[in-house]
């Protein structure tokens, strides 16, 4: 993308813009600039985010399903070995953080971890390859890393939040949940304060869950974009160490997202703090 006419600002802006499409004047229409995307409002879709996460999610499902179909209690194949190692790792994490009994939690944790990891891992593809390919296909913008689009983490965190609310009501009952929100930490005489604090606490869970992942990945992406502004023969000096370090970050962020999901759901399952 570093053509002569493109300034650094334009390059950065271009890389930070999703392929946002919505229903324009009598048809589907994709934004060509950030302002245009802004004008589309809520009823627009970031096609690149949805597409990448869909492809990566299906990749995860197909690979694990192909192994699960052939799963044997006898001598496992290499793929099964790998998947089993993974499943046991997830199972261990769930057992370590989740005290209740719920058959949903472990598959949820597995999906969260692998999906987020795969989406984060797109950050390791050289920064211009995917947008370059998209440009060759005639698309104006393309962000390869779904987790650097704030919508993706928010969508997932929203799912987790709904589950937290659902299990809070289911396990504690409406009264129990209301009591938990209003009677601590200061007892019944500090009820309004309690309510405010606990509601903030509750809302902070999905927000921090989403923004932590988004912030980390966005910042990492940003560094890659800035490194890409260097002359091509110097880029490797910074991009190689940063990519190596980023391997740690993408894994860590996926792990944190999974662990927090488990922990929040564990809190929702506990009758008393």
């Amino acid at each position: 993308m570093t053509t002569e006419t493109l300034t650094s600002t334009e390059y950065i802006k271009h890389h930070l813009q999703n392929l946002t499409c919505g229903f324009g004047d009598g048809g589907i229409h994709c934004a060509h600039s950030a302002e245009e995307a802004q004008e589309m409002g809520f009823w627009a879709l970031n096609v690149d985010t949805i597409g990448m996460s869909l492809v990566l999610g299906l990749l995860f499902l197909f690979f694990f399903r192909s192994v699960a179909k052939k799963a044997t209690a006898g001598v496992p194949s290499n793929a099964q070995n790998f998947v089993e190692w993974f499943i046991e790792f997830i199972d261990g994490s769930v057992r370590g953080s989740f005290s209740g009994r719920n058959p949903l939690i472990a598959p949820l944790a597995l999906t969260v971890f692998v999906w987020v990891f795969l989406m984060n891992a797109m950050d390791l593809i050289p920064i211009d390859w995917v947008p370059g390919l998209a440009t060759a296909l005639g698309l104006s913008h393309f962000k390869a890393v779904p987790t650097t689009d704030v919508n993706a983490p928010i969508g997932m965190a929203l799912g987790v939040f709904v589950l937290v609310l659902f299990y809070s009501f289911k396990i504690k009952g409406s009264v129990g949940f209301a009591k938990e929100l209003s009677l601590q930490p200061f007892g019944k005489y500090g009820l309004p304060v309690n309510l405010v604090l606990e509601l903030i606490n509750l809302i902070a869970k999905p927000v921090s869950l989403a923004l932590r992942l988004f912030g980390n990945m966005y910042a990492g992406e940003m560094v890659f974009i800035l490194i890409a502004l260097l002359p091509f023969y110097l880029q490797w000096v910074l991009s190689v160490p940063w990519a190596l370090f980023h391997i740690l970050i993408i894994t860590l962020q996926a792990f944190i997202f999974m662990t927090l999901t488990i922990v929040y759901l564990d809190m929702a399952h506990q009758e008393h703090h």
Partner: protein
Amino acid sequence: MNINMTLLGQLIMFVIFVAVCMKYIWPPIVGALAARKQQIADGLAAAERGKHDLDLAAKRSAELLREAKEKAAEILAQGERLKIELLDQAKASAQEEAERIMVAARAEVGQEVSRARETLRNQVADLVVAGASKILQREVDAKAHADLLSALKQEL
């Protein structure tokens, strides 16, 4: 950077992926893991049982061996006893036989002696008669002197 319907799309995908994972991925693999665990546990238990059986068999074989040894020793002792008994019997019967032979021999010797004495007596009597006849220079009537001679024989 704007919030739009993408997050709903993401939410829907999330729900579907989790549901698929929960229904089609997690159970078979965890089931295989549990089955393998069970197999390994069974195998270990079987090995333990086999080891136990082996121990029992070893104990039993040692016992059998000990019993066999005892029996053999007993049989040997019995044989020894029998041998001594037989030897004693043989010795006793041999002694008896020897005594019997001795008695028979002694009796025979006695007979022989008396027979020899008889012969000797007869010969002496003959000699005496011959001598006397020579001394008398005449024919002595043997019949006439038979009484005399037999009296002499008795004296001898």
